[in-house]
């Protein structure tokens, strides 16, 4: 490092404009780590999805083009699982969009109001679940909802609704909704924070002016504040999309990599994990695993591109 410094200093005093080595030094470590351990693996996985083990020699991989994707979309044992996981993932995402983000917006609109006391305390406490690990959150809710311990049943009984108690995590019809709502519970803090930031950046004069003109709380919110925070609405939407289609941990800790019961909580993340590492009697299949990661990549990329070119551009134009 020291010799390099001396070298560049010497170069600086030479007549010609020296090659700016210091720029290379500043950029190299970050660029290399990012390229080798993030960009290269993402493309490497996509390329792996175009290969399959040779039937004679399993150690050897042959180039097969898009055949893995074809298998995934046509062979029943793959297609059923893939369609199931994609559908569950869309349900998972829809519940986040319909519950997490509106609740986050509601909480943010209350927290950002100057007239509400103890705002910081509420904000800190409501954000707490977001910093907990999936392992924690998964187990906490698993034992809370478990019929064995009976926290959920006890709570329902105390308000006279004991009959409504169901083992929601064990039933095919309710497990996915329950897991989605637990994820909403954990992550509502993020949209809340982002919306709060956007709401407090609206100049007070704008809102006061509307109030003077006789606009009430609702009118101010929907006609003035909401249009001004549309860029944040888009960011929250795309973050939710990417996060949800990449989700794995919560289902894994609560319902195992099988997406119990009977694959009803299986997401693309758990399908990917099972395919790559194998489960029960099925052996792991790295190239099919890479193919599922490829499907996830395409879905996430589509979502991001729709946001970048369909939403963000239009919003910026409206703002100007």
């Amino acid at each position, binding site marked *: 490092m020291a010799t390099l410094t001396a070298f560049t200093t010497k170069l600086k005093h030479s007549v010609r404009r020296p090659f700016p080595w210091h*720029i290379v030094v500043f950029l190299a470590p970050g660029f290399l780590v990012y390229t080798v351990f*993030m960009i290269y693996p993402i493309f490497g*996985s996509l390329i792996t999805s175009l290969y399959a083990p040779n039937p004679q020699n399993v150690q050897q991989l042959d180039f097969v083009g898009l055949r893995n994707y074809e298998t995934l979309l046509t062979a029943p044992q793959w297609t059923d699982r893939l369609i199931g996981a994609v559908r569950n993932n869309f349900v998972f995402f829809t519940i986040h969009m319909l519950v997490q983000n509106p609740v986050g917006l509601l909480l943010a609109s209350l927290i950002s109001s100057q*007239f509400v006391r103890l705002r910081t305390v509420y904000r800190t*406490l409501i954000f707490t679940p977001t*910093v907990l*690990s999936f*392992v*924690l959150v998964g187990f906490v809710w698993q034992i809370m909802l478990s019929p064995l311990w009976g926290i959920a049943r006890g709570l329902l009984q105390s308000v006279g609704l004991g009959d409504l108690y169901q083992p929601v995590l064990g039933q095919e019809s309710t497990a996915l909704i329950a897991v989605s709502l637990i994820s909403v519970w954990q992550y509502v803090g993020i949209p809340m924070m982002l919306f709060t930031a956007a709401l407090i950046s609206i100049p007070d004069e704008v809102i006061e002016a509307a109030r003077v003109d006789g606009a009430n709380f609702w009118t101010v919110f929907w006609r003035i504040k909401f249009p001004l925070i549309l860029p944040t609405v888009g960011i929250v939407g795309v973050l939710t999309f990417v996060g949800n289609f990449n989700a794995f941990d919560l289902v894994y800790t609560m319902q195992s990599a099988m997406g119990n019961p009977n694959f009803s909580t299986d997401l693309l*993340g758990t399908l990917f994990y099972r395919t790559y590492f194998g489960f029960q009697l099925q052996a792991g299949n790295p190239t099919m695993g890479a193919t599922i990661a490829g499907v996830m990549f395409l879905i996430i990329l589509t979502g991001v591109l729709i946001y970048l070119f369909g939403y963000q551009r239009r919003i910026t134009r409206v703002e100007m």
Partner: protein
Amino acid sequence: MRNTLVSRGVQQIAAQAILLAYTALAIYPVIIILINAFKNRRAIFRDPFALPTPETFTLVGFETLTTSGNFPLYFFNSFVVVIVSVVCIMLFASMMAFAFSEYKFPGSTLLSLYMSAGIMIPIRLGTVSIIVLMRTLGIIDTLLALILVYVASGMPLAVFVLTSFMRSVPQDLKDAARVDGASEYRIFLLVLPLVRPALGTVAVFNIIPIWNDLWFPLVLTSSDRVKTITYGAQAFMGQFANDYNAILASLTLSMVPVIVLYILFSRQLVRGLTSGAVK
């Protein structure tokens, strides 16, 4: 005027009611875990909502942890991974951010776009190749493998946040140093303390997800000596599924560092999340 005051009073009450109800929902499970971790098995099941009393108080769950888990080691591993990763992210990202904000060089826009690409595309999609790569490099099942992955995935957002902060450092300051004959590396070191708030934000943004990550420990490590606390707790809880005392104790233990950290740094975290709002 009186009307607005009355309606503000009503709004205040409604707002407090909603926030209070939601806060209760947010922290209720955490409190249930904490109070039951210190109760004996019978009390846990008979009256889960009660605080521990002298008769029901016990530390038996924590005793199980000391005899059957390797928790001190898991904690140590998590600390090593988090600290080394976060320090590398802060150093490498601020170097890159300094270059982006300070120099004009061919391809700088393209390079900064390349770095930003990683903000939206999750690194997990590269898992298949990461495993092969780590095997080839002979570092699979080591803490180094985890650190490299976390540094790589932390770079894009860190570079993005730090670049915009570095741009706000006054040019005069740097030029004055240059006139005094300071090298570019010295100037970088001069700028670094000035972006401390942004470095704090980057640190908190990375510490919590790295501490909590389950995916990469799960796919890159297998032996007990390199387990992180999150993975260790997961394995432990699976194994002791019916020992509520042990589970509640391990939940409590793995929760404490994150919550302490969160309380200590919550201002930084909020500032980071709301940085767009700084007027």
